[in-house]
Protein backbone atom coordinates (compact mmCIF):
# COMPACT_ATOMS: atom_id res chain seq x y z
CA UNK A 1 0.00 0.00 0.00
CA UNK A 2 1.42 3.30 -0.98
CA UNK A 3 -0.54 5.56 1.34
CA UNK A 4 0.65 6.13 4.85
CA UNK A 5 -2.03 7.35 7.24
CA UNK A 6 0.32 7.79 10.16
CA UNK A 7 3.06 10.36 9.71
CA UNK A 8 1.29 12.13 6.88
CA UNK A 9 3.55 15.07 7.34
CA UNK A 10 7.12 14.54 8.27
CA UNK A 11 6.93 16.14 11.65
CA UNK A 12 8.10 13.10 13.59
CA UNK A 13 11.74 12.25 14.09
CA UNK A 14 13.23 9.12 12.53
CA UNK A 15 12.53 6.00 14.59
CA UNK A 16 16.21 5.57 15.40
CA UNK A 17 15.98 8.49 17.83
CA UNK A 18 14.81 6.97 21.12
CA UNK A 19 13.06 10.09 22.35
CA UNK A 20 10.67 9.71 25.23
CA UNK A 21 7.21 11.08 24.46
CA UNK A 22 5.52 10.32 27.76
CA UNK A 23 7.01 10.25 31.22
CA UNK A 24 5.09 9.29 34.34
CA UNK A 25 6.52 9.15 37.80
CA UNK A 26 4.56 8.30 40.92
CA UNK A 27 1.36 9.07 38.99
CA UNK A 28 -1.73 9.04 41.21
CA UNK A 29 -5.45 9.51 40.70
CA UNK A 30 -7.90 9.60 43.56
CA UNK A 31 -11.62 10.09 43.23
CA UNK A 32 -13.74 11.45 46.05
CA UNK A 33 -16.44 8.92 46.88
CA UNK A 34 -19.89 10.36 47.35
CA UNK A 35 -20.15 8.80 50.80
CA UNK A 36 -17.16 7.76 52.78
CA UNK A 37 -13.48 7.65 51.93
CA UNK A 38 -11.71 8.46 48.67
CA UNK A 39 -11.11 5.80 46.05
CA UNK A 40 -7.60 5.49 44.63
CA UNK A 41 -7.82 4.34 41.00
CA UNK A 42 -4.15 4.82 40.19
CA UNK A 43 -1.78 4.38 43.11
CA UNK A 44 1.59 5.72 42.03
CA UNK A 45 2.85 4.33 38.73
CA UNK A 46 6.02 4.91 36.71
CA UNK A 47 6.39 4.40 32.97
CA UNK A 48 7.92 5.88 29.85
CA UNK A 49 6.69 5.68 26.28
CA UNK A 50 9.18 6.15 23.47
CA UNK A 51 8.54 7.36 19.95
CA UNK A 52 7.58 4.63 17.52
CA UNK A 53 6.79 1.91 20.01
CA UNK A 54 3.54 0.18 20.83
CA UNK A 55 3.05 0.42 24.55
CA UNK A 56 0.35 -1.51 26.38
CA UNK A 57 -1.45 -1.46 29.69
CA UNK A 58 -2.62 -4.99 30.43
CA UNK A 59 -4.91 -5.68 33.33
CA UNK A 60 -8.41 -6.71 34.36
CA UNK A 61 -11.36 -4.33 34.57
CA UNK A 62 -10.87 -1.86 37.40
CA UNK A 63 -7.08 -2.05 37.34
CA UNK A 64 -6.78 1.69 36.65
CA UNK A 65 -5.98 1.41 32.94
CA UNK A 66 -8.72 3.70 31.65
CA UNK A 67 -8.07 6.27 34.35
CA UNK A 68 -4.42 6.33 33.37
CA UNK A 69 -5.41 6.72 29.72
CA UNK A 70 -7.65 9.65 30.55
CA UNK A 71 -4.82 11.39 32.34
CA UNK A 72 -2.55 10.75 29.35
CA UNK A 73 -5.31 12.06 27.10
CA UNK A 74 -5.50 15.24 29.22
CA UNK A 75 -9.21 14.89 29.96
CA UNK A 76 -8.78 14.02 33.62
CA UNK A 77 -6.56 16.17 35.82
CA UNK A 78 -3.42 14.52 37.18
CA UNK A 79 -4.13 13.69 40.79
CA UNK A 80 -0.56 13.49 42.05
CA UNK A 81 2.98 12.65 41.03
CA UNK A 82 4.42 13.67 37.69
CA UNK A 83 3.15 13.25 34.14
CA UNK A 84 4.43 14.91 31.00
CA UNK A 85 3.72 14.46 27.30
CA UNK A 86 6.13 15.94 24.76
CA UNK A 87 7.68 17.62 27.80
CA UNK A 88 4.43 19.49 28.51
CA UNK A 89 2.30 19.46 31.66
CA UNK A 90 -1.22 18.06 30.97
CA UNK A 91 -2.81 20.14 33.71
CA UNK A 92 -1.81 23.41 32.08
CA UNK A 93 -1.13 22.56 28.41
CA UNK A 94 -3.98 20.14 27.75
CA UNK A 95 -5.16 21.67 24.45
CA UNK A 96 -1.60 21.86 23.06
CA UNK A 97 -0.99 18.22 23.95
CA UNK A 98 -4.34 17.04 22.62
CA UNK A 99 -3.59 18.76 19.31
CA UNK A 100 -0.84 16.14 18.88
CA UNK A 101 -2.82 13.11 20.07
CA UNK A 102 -5.32 10.79 18.43
CA UNK A 103 -7.78 9.21 20.84
CA UNK A 104 -9.96 6.14 20.37
CA UNK A 105 -12.16 6.03 23.48
CA UNK A 106 -13.53 2.84 24.93
CA UNK A 107 -17.07 3.75 23.97
CA UNK A 108 -17.72 5.08 20.50
CA UNK A 109 -18.43 8.80 20.49
CA UNK A 110 -19.41 9.06 16.84
CA UNK A 111 -22.22 11.25 15.57
CA UNK A 112 -24.53 8.43 14.57
CA UNK A 113 -27.01 10.77 12.86
CA UNK A 114 -24.32 12.16 10.57
CA UNK A 115 -22.76 10.52 7.57
CA UNK A 116 -19.41 8.77 7.87
CA UNK A 117 -17.64 11.50 5.89
CA UNK A 118 -19.22 14.27 7.99
CA UNK A 119 -17.91 12.62 11.13
CA UNK A 120 -14.41 12.98 9.76
CA UNK A 121 -15.15 16.53 8.74
CA UNK A 122 -16.49 17.87 12.05
CA UNK A 123 -13.67 16.20 13.94
CA UNK A 124 -10.97 17.55 11.64
CA UNK A 125 -12.36 21.02 12.05
CA UNK A 126 -11.89 20.87 15.82
CA UNK A 127 -8.18 20.88 15.01
CA UNK A 128 -8.56 23.83 12.66
CA UNK A 129 -7.54 21.84 9.60
CA UNK A 130 -8.46 23.38 6.24
CA UNK A 131 -11.38 21.79 4.41
CA UNK A 132 -9.28 20.57 1.49
CA UNK A 133 -6.81 18.87 3.82
CA UNK A 134 -9.63 17.19 5.74
CA UNK A 135 -11.24 15.98 2.51
CA UNK A 136 -8.02 14.52 1.24
CA UNK A 137 -7.12 12.84 4.54
CA UNK A 138 -10.66 11.58 5.12
CA UNK A 139 -10.64 9.85 1.75
CA UNK A 140 -7.27 8.27 2.46
CA UNK A 141 -8.08 7.25 6.03
CA UNK A 142 -11.49 5.82 5.16
CA UNK A 143 -9.72 3.77 2.53
CA UNK A 144 -7.22 2.65 5.15
CA UNK A 145 -9.96 1.38 7.47
CA UNK A 146 -11.89 -0.11 4.53
CA UNK A 147 -14.90 2.17 4.81
CA UNK A 148 -14.68 4.03 1.50
CA UNK A 149 -17.89 2.50 0.18
CA UNK A 150 -19.74 3.60 3.33
CA UNK A 151 -18.50 7.20 3.25
CA UNK A 152 -21.89 8.63 2.27
CA UNK A 153 -23.88 6.45 4.67
CA UNK A 154 -25.08 7.39 8.10
CA UNK A 155 -23.09 5.95 10.99
CA UNK A 156 -26.11 4.50 12.78
CA UNK A 157 -26.49 1.26 10.76
CA UNK A 158 -22.77 0.42 10.73
CA UNK A 159 -21.63 -2.67 12.61
CA UNK A 160 -19.64 -2.42 15.83
CA UNK A 161 -16.42 -3.26 14.02
CA UNK A 162 -17.02 -0.61 11.37
CA UNK A 163 -17.78 2.01 13.99
CA UNK A 164 -14.56 1.18 15.79
CA UNK A 165 -12.61 1.44 12.55
CA UNK A 166 -14.25 4.78 11.80
CA UNK A 167 -13.27 5.99 15.26
CA UNK A 168 -9.68 4.97 14.51
CA UNK A 169 -9.74 6.78 11.16
CA UNK A 170 -11.21 9.86 12.83
CA UNK A 171 -8.51 9.82 15.50
CA UNK A 172 -5.85 9.92 12.77
CA UNK A 173 -7.25 13.01 11.02
CA UNK A 174 -4.80 15.38 12.75
CA UNK A 175 -1.81 13.18 11.93
CA UNK A 176 -1.20 12.51 15.64
CA UNK A 177 2.20 11.75 17.10
CA UNK A 178 0.63 9.26 19.49
CA UNK A 179 -2.51 7.21 18.96
CA UNK A 180 -4.23 6.24 22.21
CA UNK A 181 -6.65 3.31 22.18
CA UNK A 182 -8.68 2.32 25.22
CA UNK A 183 -9.81 -1.31 24.86
CA UNK A 184 -9.88 -1.10 21.06
CA UNK A 185 -11.52 -4.48 20.47
CA UNK A 186 -13.71 -4.92 23.54
CA UNK A 187 -17.23 -5.80 22.50
CA UNK A 188 -16.30 -6.84 18.96
CA UNK A 189 -16.80 -10.31 17.54
CA UNK A 190 -13.65 -12.33 16.74
CA UNK A 191 -13.65 -11.51 13.04
CA UNK A 192 -14.07 -7.78 13.63
CA UNK A 193 -11.30 -7.90 16.20
CA UNK A 194 -8.91 -9.37 13.67
CA UNK A 195 -9.66 -6.62 11.16
CA UNK A 196 -8.94 -3.98 13.82
CA UNK A 197 -5.74 -5.76 14.84
CA UNK A 198 -4.64 -5.89 11.23
CA UNK A 199 -5.10 -2.12 10.86
CA UNK A 200 -3.31 -1.39 14.12
CA UNK A 201 -0.50 -3.68 13.06
CA UNK A 202 -0.13 -1.69 9.85
CA UNK A 203 0.07 1.55 11.82
CA UNK A 204 2.74 -0.04 13.98
CA UNK A 205 4.69 -1.04 10.86
CA UNK A 206 4.50 2.55 9.68
CA UNK A 207 6.10 3.73 12.89
CA UNK A 208 3.07 5.31 14.58
CA UNK A 209 3.42 5.42 18.35
CA UNK A 210 0.50 3.51 19.85
CA UNK A 211 -0.66 3.23 23.43
CA UNK A 212 -3.37 0.75 24.18
CA UNK A 213 -5.13 -0.79 27.12
CA UNK A 214 -6.53 -4.25 26.94
CA UNK A 215 -7.60 -7.14 29.06
CA UNK A 216 -7.00 -9.56 26.21
CA UNK A 217 -3.60 -11.13 26.55
CA UNK A 218 -3.51 -12.19 22.90
CA UNK A 219 -4.07 -8.57 21.86
CA UNK A 220 -1.22 -7.42 24.08
CA UNK A 221 1.07 -10.19 22.88
CA UNK A 222 0.44 -9.55 19.21
CA UNK A 223 0.63 -5.78 19.20
CA UNK A 224 2.77 -4.53 22.06
CA UNK A 225 6.50 -3.98 21.94
CA UNK A 226 6.45 -3.27 25.62
CA UNK A 227 3.77 -3.35 28.26
CA UNK A 228 3.01 -2.93 31.91
CA UNK A 229 0.83 -5.34 33.82
CA UNK A 230 -1.55 -3.35 36.00
CA UNK A 231 -3.48 -4.56 38.99
CA UNK A 232 -5.39 -2.55 41.59
CA UNK A 233 -3.92 0.75 40.47
CA UNK A 234 -0.32 -0.43 40.53
CA UNK A 235 2.16 -1.77 38.02
CA UNK A 236 2.94 -5.40 38.79
CA UNK A 237 5.54 -5.91 36.05
CA UNK A 238 6.99 -4.22 32.99
CA UNK A 239 8.72 -5.48 29.86
CA UNK A 240 8.33 -6.97 26.39
CA UNK A 241 5.66 -9.70 26.19
CA UNK A 242 8.24 -12.48 25.55
CA UNK A 243 10.47 -11.15 28.29
CA UNK A 244 7.65 -11.17 30.82
CA UNK A 245 6.66 -14.70 29.91
CA UNK A 246 10.25 -15.89 30.26
CA UNK A 247 10.63 -14.10 33.56
CA UNK A 248 7.37 -15.12 35.21
CA UNK A 249 6.36 -18.39 33.56
CA UNK A 250 7.88 -21.59 32.24
CA UNK A 251 8.13 -22.33 28.54
CA UNK A 252 5.08 -24.58 28.56
CA UNK A 253 1.98 -25.16 30.63
CA UNK A 254 0.13 -28.41 31.18
CA UNK A 255 -3.58 -27.85 31.79
CA UNK A 256 -5.35 -30.73 33.52
CA UNK A 257 -9.04 -31.17 34.24
CA UNK A 258 -10.26 -33.74 36.73
CA UNK A 259 -13.71 -35.13 37.55
CA UNK A 260 -15.69 -33.04 40.04
CA UNK A 261 -14.45 -33.48 43.58
CA UNK A 262 -11.20 -35.18 42.63
CA UNK A 263 -9.21 -32.08 41.80
CA UNK A 264 -7.91 -31.43 45.29
CA UNK A 265 -6.50 -34.92 45.72
CA UNK A 266 -5.05 -34.80 42.24
CA UNK A 267 -3.30 -31.50 42.98
CA UNK A 268 -1.65 -33.10 45.99
CA UNK A 269 -0.42 -35.99 43.90
CA UNK A 270 0.93 -33.61 41.27
CA UNK A 271 3.19 -31.88 43.79
CA UNK A 272 6.75 -31.76 42.61
CA UNK A 273 6.02 -32.03 38.90
CA UNK A 274 7.30 -29.04 36.92
CA UNK A 275 8.36 -25.80 38.54
CA UNK A 276 5.05 -24.74 39.98
CA UNK A 277 1.39 -25.73 40.33
CA UNK A 278 -1.54 -23.38 40.02
CA UNK A 279 -4.87 -24.93 41.07
CA UNK A 280 -7.80 -23.00 39.55
CA UNK A 281 -11.47 -23.65 40.32
CA UNK A 282 -11.95 -25.72 37.16
CA UNK A 283 -8.45 -27.03 36.35
CA UNK A 284 -4.90 -27.39 37.53
CA UNK A 285 -2.04 -25.67 35.71
CA UNK A 286 1.36 -27.33 35.82
CA UNK A 287 4.19 -24.97 34.85
CA UNK A 288 6.96 -26.98 33.23
CA UNK A 289 9.44 -26.36 30.44
CA UNK A 290 8.47 -29.72 28.94
CA UNK A 291 4.71 -30.17 29.15
CA UNK A 292 4.64 -33.63 27.60
CA UNK A 293 7.17 -34.92 30.11
CA UNK A 294 5.07 -33.49 32.93
CA UNK A 295 2.00 -35.27 31.54
CA UNK A 296 3.88 -38.58 31.33
CA UNK A 297 4.94 -38.15 34.94
CA UNK A 298 1.33 -37.42 35.98
CA UNK A 299 0.16 -40.62 34.27
CA UNK A 300 2.99 -42.54 35.93
CA UNK A 301 1.70 -41.35 39.32
CA UNK A 302 -1.66 -42.94 38.48
CA UNK A 303 -3.58 -39.75 37.70
CA UNK A 304 -6.32 -39.89 35.09
CA UNK A 305 -7.34 -36.38 34.06
CA UNK A 306 -10.53 -35.89 32.00
CA UNK A 307 -8.64 -33.64 29.62
CA UNK A 308 -4.96 -32.75 29.30
CA UNK A 309 -3.59 -29.92 27.20
CA UNK A 310 -0.02 -28.77 26.69
CA UNK A 311 0.38 -25.18 25.49
CA UNK A 312 2.91 -22.39 25.47
CA UNK A 313 2.85 -19.91 28.32
CA UNK A 314 1.08 -16.61 27.67
CA UNK A 315 0.68 -13.26 29.37
CA UNK A 316 -2.36 -14.76 31.06
CA UNK A 317 0.04 -17.00 33.01
CA UNK A 318 2.20 -14.01 33.83
CA UNK A 319 -0.80 -12.20 35.20
CA UNK A 320 -1.93 -15.24 37.15
CA UNK A 321 1.49 -15.62 38.69
CA UNK A 322 1.76 -11.95 39.61
CA UNK A 323 -1.71 -11.47 41.05
CA UNK A 324 -3.10 -14.92 41.73
CA UNK A 325 -6.11 -14.07 39.56
CA UNK A 326 -7.16 -14.53 35.95
CA UNK A 327 -7.48 -11.59 33.55
CA UNK A 328 -10.97 -12.19 32.22
CA UNK A 329 -13.44 -13.57 34.69
Amino acid at each position, binding site marked *: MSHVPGNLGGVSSPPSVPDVLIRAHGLVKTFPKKHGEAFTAVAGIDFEVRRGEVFGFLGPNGAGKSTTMRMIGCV*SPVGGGHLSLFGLDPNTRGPQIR*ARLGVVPQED*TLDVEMRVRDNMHVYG*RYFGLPRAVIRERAARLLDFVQLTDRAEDKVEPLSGGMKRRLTIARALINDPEILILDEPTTGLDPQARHVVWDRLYRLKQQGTTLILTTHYMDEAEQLCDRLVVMDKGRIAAEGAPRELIERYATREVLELRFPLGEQEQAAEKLAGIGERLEPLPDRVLVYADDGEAALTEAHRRGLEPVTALVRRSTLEDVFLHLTGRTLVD
Partner: protein
Amino acid sequence: MSTETISAAASAEATERSRRVPGGLVLSWRQFLYWYTFFYRTWRGTVVSAILGPVMYLTAMGVGIGTLITHGLPAGVTYLSFIAPGVLAAMAMQNGIFEGSFTVLGSVKWAGNYWAAVNTPQRPQDIMFGTAMQGLARTAAMSTVFFCAMVGFGTTHSLWSVLALPVALLTGAVFLFPMMAFSITLDSDQPLIVVFRFVMTPLFLFSGTFFPWQQLPEWMHPIAFITPLWHGVELCRELTLGTVTATSAAIHIGYLLVALAAGVALARRNFDRRLYLHR
Protein backbone atom coordinates in the same frame (compact mmCIF):
# COMPACT_ATOMS: atom_id res chain seq x y z
CA MET B 1 -15.14 9.71 -5.63
CA SER B 2 -12.85 12.59 -6.50
CA THR B 3 -9.40 12.35 -5.07
CA GLU B 4 -8.01 15.61 -3.77
CA THR B 5 -4.44 16.35 -4.48
CA ILE B 6 -2.79 17.99 -1.52
CA SER B 7 0.97 17.99 -1.55
CA ALA B 8 2.71 16.30 1.34
CA ALA B 9 4.29 19.62 2.20
CA ALA B 10 0.93 21.43 2.33
CA SER B 11 -0.50 18.66 4.47
CA ALA B 12 2.47 18.80 6.83
CA GLU B 13 2.10 22.54 7.08
CA ALA B 14 -1.60 22.19 7.96
CA THR B 15 -0.63 19.70 10.67
CA GLU B 16 2.03 22.06 11.95
CA ARG B 17 -0.49 24.89 12.10
CA SER B 18 -3.08 22.74 13.86
CA ARG B 19 -0.53 22.18 16.65
CA ARG B 20 -0.55 25.88 17.49
CA VAL B 21 -3.69 26.08 19.54
CA PRO B 22 -5.58 29.37 19.11
CA GLY B 23 -7.45 31.37 21.74
CA GLY B 24 -10.83 30.63 23.26
CA LEU B 25 -12.78 32.65 20.70
CA VAL B 26 -11.54 30.58 17.76
CA LEU B 27 -11.97 27.34 19.69
CA SER B 28 -15.55 28.30 20.60
CA TRP B 29 -16.19 29.19 16.97
CA ARG B 30 -15.09 25.69 15.96
CA GLN B 31 -17.64 24.25 18.39
CA PHE B 32 -20.25 26.55 16.88
CA LEU B 33 -19.37 25.19 13.43
CA TYR B 34 -19.96 21.68 14.72
CA TRP B 35 -23.51 22.67 15.63
CA TYR B 36 -23.97 24.42 12.34
CA THR B 37 -23.19 21.14 10.56
CA PHE B 38 -25.34 19.24 13.01
CA PHE B 39 -28.44 21.37 12.49
CA TYR B 40 -27.88 22.07 8.84
CA ARG B 41 -30.11 19.22 7.71
CA THR B 42 -33.10 20.36 9.81
CA TRP B 43 -32.99 24.13 9.30
CA ARG B 44 -36.00 24.24 6.95
CA GLY B 45 -38.35 22.82 9.54
CA THR B 46 -36.99 25.25 12.11
CA VAL B 47 -37.61 28.24 9.87
CA VAL B 48 -41.18 27.23 9.06
CA SER B 49 -42.11 26.80 12.71
CA ALA B 50 -40.26 29.99 13.62
CA ILE B 51 -42.38 32.00 11.20
CA LEU B 52 -45.72 30.26 11.68
CA GLY B 53 -45.57 30.37 15.48
CA PRO B 54 -45.47 34.14 16.00
CA VAL B 55 -47.98 34.89 13.25
CA MET B 56 -50.51 32.50 14.77
CA TYR B 57 -49.77 33.81 18.22
CA LEU B 58 -50.24 37.46 17.37
CA THR B 59 -53.35 36.77 15.31
CA ALA B 60 -54.98 34.82 18.13
CA MET B 61 -54.00 37.32 20.80
CA GLY B 62 -54.60 40.49 18.83
CA VAL B 63 -57.58 39.71 16.67
CA GLY B 64 -59.09 37.18 19.07
CA ILE B 65 -58.60 37.65 22.80
CA GLY B 66 -57.24 41.18 22.41
CA THR B 67 -60.50 42.69 21.27
CA LEU B 68 -62.21 41.45 24.46
CA ILE B 69 -59.71 43.13 26.76
CA THR B 70 -59.79 46.87 27.19
CA HIS B 71 -59.63 47.06 30.95
CA GLY B 72 -56.59 47.82 33.18
CA LEU B 73 -54.20 48.61 30.35
CA PRO B 74 -52.04 51.75 30.17
CA ALA B 75 -53.94 54.56 28.46
CA GLY B 76 -54.23 54.27 24.69
CA VAL B 77 -52.49 50.93 24.47
CA THR B 78 -54.21 47.96 22.81
CA TYR B 79 -53.90 44.54 24.40
CA LEU B 80 -51.89 43.32 21.44
CA SER B 81 -49.40 46.17 21.79
CA PHE B 82 -49.22 45.41 25.50
CA ILE B 83 -48.45 41.71 25.29
CA ALA B 84 -46.37 41.60 22.08
CA PRO B 85 -43.12 42.89 23.67
CA GLY B 86 -43.79 40.70 26.70
CA VAL B 87 -44.16 37.65 24.52
CA LEU B 88 -41.00 38.67 22.63
CA ALA B 89 -39.01 38.52 25.88
CA ALA B 90 -40.80 35.44 27.21
CA MET B 91 -40.24 33.52 23.98
CA ALA B 92 -36.57 34.43 24.08
CA MET B 93 -36.45 32.98 27.59
CA GLN B 94 -38.21 29.86 26.39
CA ASN B 95 -35.79 29.47 23.49
CA GLY B 96 -32.85 30.02 25.81
CA ILE B 97 -34.10 27.30 28.15
CA PHE B 98 -34.79 24.86 25.32
CA GLU B 99 -31.42 25.49 23.66
CA GLY B 100 -29.66 24.87 26.95
CA SER B 101 -31.45 21.61 27.68
CA PHE B 102 -31.64 18.71 25.22
CA THR B 103 -28.73 19.94 23.14
CA VAL B 104 -26.44 19.72 26.15
CA LEU B 105 -27.86 16.60 27.74
CA GLY B 106 -27.86 14.78 24.41
CA SER B 107 -24.25 15.73 23.75
CA VAL B 108 -23.06 14.31 27.00
CA LYS B 109 -25.45 11.41 27.41
CA TRP B 110 -26.79 10.10 24.12
CA ALA B 111 -24.68 11.31 21.20
CA GLY B 112 -21.38 11.65 23.02
CA ASN B 113 -20.14 14.48 20.80
CA TYR B 114 -18.86 16.37 23.84
CA TRP B 115 -16.72 13.37 24.77
CA ALA B 116 -15.31 13.38 21.27
CA ALA B 117 -14.64 17.11 21.40
CA VAL B 118 -12.62 17.02 24.64
CA ASN B 119 -10.14 14.71 22.91
CA THR B 120 -9.26 17.58 20.58
CA PRO B 121 -7.87 21.01 21.52
CA GLN B 122 -11.40 21.95 22.66
CA ARG B 123 -11.65 22.76 26.36
CA PRO B 124 -14.88 22.44 28.35
CA GLN B 125 -15.27 26.19 28.28
CA ASP B 126 -14.90 26.30 24.47
CA ILE B 127 -17.49 23.56 24.14
CA MET B 128 -19.76 25.51 26.48
CA PHE B 129 -19.38 28.86 24.70
CA GLY B 130 -19.62 27.29 21.25
CA THR B 131 -22.85 25.54 22.17
CA ALA B 132 -24.13 28.78 23.70
CA MET B 133 -23.29 30.65 20.50
CA GLN B 134 -25.42 28.29 18.50
CA GLY B 135 -28.26 28.53 21.04
CA LEU B 136 -28.08 32.33 20.94
CA ALA B 137 -27.97 32.35 17.15
CA ARG B 138 -31.19 30.36 17.02
CA THR B 139 -32.77 32.50 19.72
CA ALA B 140 -31.77 35.60 17.77
CA ALA B 141 -33.24 34.22 14.56
CA MET B 142 -36.54 33.33 16.25
CA SER B 143 -36.71 36.67 18.03
CA THR B 144 -36.03 38.54 14.80
CA VAL B 145 -38.87 36.74 13.06
CA PHE B 146 -41.19 37.53 15.95
CA PHE B 147 -40.07 41.14 16.01
CA CYS B 148 -40.79 41.49 12.30
CA ALA B 149 -44.26 40.10 12.92
CA MET B 150 -44.69 42.64 15.74
CA VAL B 151 -43.83 45.45 13.35
CA GLY B 152 -46.25 44.01 10.80
CA PHE B 153 -49.04 43.93 13.37
CA GLY B 154 -48.35 47.56 14.27
CA THR B 155 -47.29 47.00 17.86
CA THR B 156 -44.07 49.03 17.75
CA HIS B 157 -44.80 52.60 18.75
CA SER B 158 -41.36 54.10 19.14
CA LEU B 159 -37.98 54.20 17.43
CA TRP B 160 -36.55 52.69 20.61
CA SER B 161 -38.41 49.52 19.61
CA VAL B 162 -35.40 48.33 17.63
CA LEU B 163 -33.53 47.90 20.91
CA ALA B 164 -36.18 45.49 22.17
CA LEU B 165 -34.58 42.84 19.97
CA PRO B 166 -31.15 42.84 21.65
CA VAL B 167 -32.83 43.10 25.03
CA ALA B 168 -34.89 40.00 24.24
CA LEU B 169 -31.69 38.21 23.19
CA LEU B 170 -30.04 39.26 26.46
CA THR B 171 -33.05 37.85 28.32
CA GLY B 172 -32.67 34.58 26.43
CA ALA B 173 -28.95 34.45 27.31
CA VAL B 174 -29.72 35.01 30.98
CA PHE B 175 -31.70 31.76 30.93
CA LEU B 176 -29.55 29.83 28.48
CA PHE B 177 -26.38 29.66 30.59
CA PRO B 178 -27.90 28.48 33.89
CA MET B 179 -29.92 25.94 31.94
CA MET B 180 -26.73 24.64 30.28
CA ALA B 181 -25.07 24.55 33.70
CA PHE B 182 -27.94 22.43 34.95
CA SER B 183 -28.25 20.11 31.94
CA ILE B 184 -24.54 19.21 31.91
CA THR B 185 -24.89 17.68 35.38
CA LEU B 186 -27.75 15.37 34.38
CA ASP B 187 -27.94 11.74 33.35
CA SER B 188 -31.60 11.63 32.32
CA ASP B 189 -34.17 14.04 30.90
CA GLN B 190 -36.65 13.78 33.76
CA PRO B 191 -35.32 16.85 35.60
CA LEU B 192 -35.61 18.87 32.37
CA ILE B 193 -39.33 18.21 32.21
CA VAL B 194 -39.61 19.41 35.80
CA VAL B 195 -37.86 22.66 34.87
CA PHE B 196 -40.13 23.20 31.88
CA ARG B 197 -43.26 22.66 33.95
CA PHE B 198 -42.43 24.22 37.27
CA VAL B 199 -39.97 26.95 36.38
CA MET B 200 -40.49 28.00 32.80
CA THR B 201 -44.28 27.93 32.62
CA PRO B 202 -44.89 29.92 35.86
CA LEU B 203 -42.30 32.48 34.77
CA PHE B 204 -43.99 32.73 31.39
CA LEU B 205 -47.36 33.34 33.01
CA PHE B 206 -46.49 35.50 36.01
CA SER B 207 -43.70 37.82 34.93
CA GLY B 208 -46.02 40.48 33.59
CA THR B 209 -46.13 39.00 30.11
CA PHE B 210 -49.89 38.78 29.69
CA PHE B 211 -51.13 41.29 32.25
CA PRO B 212 -49.70 44.26 34.15
CA TRP B 213 -47.64 43.00 37.07
CA GLN B 214 -49.38 45.51 39.34
CA GLN B 215 -52.40 43.21 39.23
CA LEU B 216 -50.51 40.48 41.06
CA PRO B 217 -51.14 40.31 44.83
CA GLU B 218 -48.86 42.67 46.76
CA TRP B 219 -46.79 39.87 48.31
CA MET B 220 -45.87 38.56 44.88
CA HIS B 221 -44.33 41.81 43.68
CA PRO B 222 -40.86 41.18 45.17
CA ILE B 223 -40.89 37.75 43.54
CA ALA B 224 -41.62 39.34 40.19
CA PHE B 225 -38.81 41.84 40.70
CA ILE B 226 -36.17 39.17 41.27
CA THR B 227 -37.05 37.14 38.19
CA PRO B 228 -34.87 38.16 35.25
CA LEU B 229 -37.79 37.65 32.89
CA TRP B 230 -39.75 40.42 34.57
CA HIS B 231 -36.88 42.83 33.84
CA GLY B 232 -36.71 41.65 30.24
CA VAL B 233 -40.45 41.96 29.72
CA GLU B 234 -40.64 45.40 31.32
CA LEU B 235 -37.73 46.80 29.35
CA CYS B 236 -38.97 45.39 26.03
CA ARG B 237 -42.36 46.90 26.70
CA GLU B 238 -40.96 50.29 27.69
CA LEU B 239 -38.95 50.28 24.48
CA THR B 240 -41.78 49.40 22.12
CA LEU B 241 -44.28 51.72 23.84
CA GLY B 242 -41.69 54.50 24.05
CA THR B 243 -41.97 54.94 27.84
CA VAL B 244 -38.37 54.01 28.55
CA THR B 245 -36.21 56.24 30.76
CA ALA B 246 -32.45 56.19 31.32
CA THR B 247 -32.95 55.06 34.92
CA SER B 248 -35.32 52.22 34.19
CA ALA B 249 -33.15 51.02 31.32
CA ALA B 250 -30.03 51.08 33.53
CA ILE B 251 -31.73 49.12 36.30
CA HIS B 252 -33.15 46.45 33.99
CA ILE B 253 -29.99 46.02 31.93
CA GLY B 254 -27.80 46.09 35.02
CA TYR B 255 -29.86 43.35 36.62
CA LEU B 256 -29.84 41.23 33.48
CA LEU B 257 -26.08 41.58 33.06
CA VAL B 258 -25.39 40.52 36.62
CA ALA B 259 -27.66 37.49 36.16
CA LEU B 260 -25.87 36.72 32.88
CA ALA B 261 -22.45 36.86 34.51
CA ALA B 262 -23.58 34.50 37.26
CA GLY B 263 -25.02 32.07 34.71
CA VAL B 264 -21.85 32.07 32.62
CA ALA B 265 -19.68 31.42 35.67
CA LEU B 266 -21.89 28.55 36.76
CA ALA B 267 -21.93 27.00 33.29
CA ARG B 268 -18.13 27.22 33.00
CA ARG B 269 -17.67 25.54 36.34
CA ASN B 270 -20.12 22.72 35.69
CA PHE B 271 -18.84 22.00 32.17
CA ASP B 272 -15.31 21.78 33.53
CA ARG B 273 -16.37 19.40 36.28
CA ARG B 274 -18.25 17.08 34.00
CA LEU B 275 -16.06 17.05 30.90
CA TYR B 276 -12.64 17.07 32.56
CA LEU B 277 -13.69 13.86 34.27
CA HIS B 278 -13.63 14.44 37.93
CA ARG B 279 -15.58 11.24 38.23
